[in-house]
């Protein structure tokens, strides 16, 4: 894989972001060759999941910002409370920081899901590009 292709992938992964969370934080350019280009979306999701990247602790929204985040994204609190319950939290175990972090991670996963077709298409193009590069090399 050429440096130019790696840069394209890096640039693309940088665009898969939400707030301060970014897909590219979980991939080193050295890992790009391991990506399964035939099912890139699933590969990326599984890889991040294995790294614990979807754990709410990876998207911590601290107290000072938690209520602001909830106010902006879940003013009724019903979604974040339901997500917390689905994750096995007890009512007495949660606070605004945990609720905001759970909600943020859910929004990150939704963002990735919404871009699944786009991710697949991008890596299909990359696969084609690598194929062309290989042919040129030969």
């Amino acid at each position, binding site marked *: 894989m050429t440096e130019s292709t790696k840069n394209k992938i890096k640039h693309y992964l940088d665009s898969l972001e939400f707030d301060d969370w970014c897909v590219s934080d979980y991939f080193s350019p050295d890992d790009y060759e391991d990506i399964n280009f035939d099912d890139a979306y699933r590969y990326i999701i599984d890889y991040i999941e294995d790294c614990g990247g979807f754990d709410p602790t990876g998207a911590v929204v601290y*107290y000072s910002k938690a209520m*602001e985040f909830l*106010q902006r994204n879940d*003013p009724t609190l019903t979604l974040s*409370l*339901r997500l917390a319950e689905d994750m096995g939290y007890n009512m007495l175990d*949660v606070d*605004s920081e945990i609720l905001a972090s759970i909600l943020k991670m859910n929004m990150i996963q939704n963002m990735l899901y919404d871009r699944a077709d786009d991710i697949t298409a991008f890596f299909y193009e990359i696969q084609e590009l690598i194929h062309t590069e290989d042919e040129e090399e030969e």
Partner: protein
Amino acid sequence: MNEAHKQQLKQILDQIEFLDWRLSDYIDPEYYDQIDEDSPFESLIDFLDYRDAFEDNNIKKYSKAMKFLDEYDDSLELSLYIAHRDGYGVLDLDSVTLANLLLVDMRKDLMKDYERDIDNFFYEMQNNNNIKFKETN
């Protein structure tokens, strides 16, 4: 209870206010005589509870609820604790419910701060009445 006593009690109750809620708005001085002099604080709570005084003028909008929670319980720990204590399930809750549970709890807590003042007022009033009664006899 004479007019002077009623005036004194009203002054105490007027102090029990939180935001735009004032306890004395829910009990007319003409009802002061209905307060049980032996356990005035509990009697007053019962009177106000019966009239839903603590639940009155509650929060109805989500935006206002979140603002209230942000100001008085930004960790949400207290309001969630109250909800749990009162038997709510997670699926019964939203920000308006949490904010109102907290609001009512804060109003009742505020009233507890005046428990001694209220009990003392009735105790002194009873004592004074007893002294006057003895003096006239």
